């Protein structure tokens, strides 16, 4: 059974339909000692059902240390959003450098959907001035946004 109401599913299906790129959600998980991993998986499973452009790839945090390091994931549940640059085809996945730590429940689900749409090709909504500033960045910056599940 879906966590989403039928009307919400329809709306999301329509929105995802506008995506021009395939998006892959790398879900880092472990079976023991992770309270919200199962809940996260259940939430993520909603998305591929709504669009054939969205896929979820489960990554075992304990066994696939290299992949976790590649995406800078040091705890679970974690989601890394990747996308395929080439239209169609099996282009190499590109990292969006957008991560979610913890279950994307409640309002965070909306943030996750927004991130998927962005990776899927939707314009960012950033102003021209902001884009110029960001494109001029020459050193790494990590932004952690703390949220709560309401």
């Amino acid at each position, binding site marked *: 059974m879906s966590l989403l109401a039928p009307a919400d599913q329809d709306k999301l299906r329509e929105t995802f339909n506008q995506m021009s790129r395939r998006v892959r959600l790398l879900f880092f998980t472990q079976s023991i000692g992770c309270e919200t991993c199962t809940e996260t998986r259940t939430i993520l499973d909603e998305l591929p059902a709504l669009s054939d452009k969205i896929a979820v790839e489960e990554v075992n945090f304990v066994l696939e240390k290299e992949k976790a390091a590649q995406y800078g994931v040091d705890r679970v549940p974690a989601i890394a959003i990747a996308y395929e640059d080439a239209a169609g085809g099996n282009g190499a996945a590109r990292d969006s450098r957008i991560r979610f730590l913890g279950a*994307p429940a409640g309002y965070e689900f909306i943030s996750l959907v927004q991130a998927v749409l962005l990776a899927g090709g939707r314009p960012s909504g950033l102003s021209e001035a902001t884009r110029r500033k*960001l494109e001029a*960045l020459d*050193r790494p*910056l990590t932004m952690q946004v703390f949220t709560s599940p309401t």
Partner: protein
Amino acid sequence: MAFVSPNITAIAVEATEFPDLARRYQVSGVPKTVVAGGDHEVEILGALPQDAYVDQALSALTKS
């Protein structure tokens, strides 16, 4: 922002699930953004207009 600049990584952290992180960054209200650039850290409390938010975030690189 992460999507536009290859130098930016953006992480949404569910504060109640990771109390160690919430404690380390003294999160007492959300949203709270902690921007780390090189040697400096900048905190942004609450939501701001885009220009102000971006300028504060980028100040993590220029702060002395």
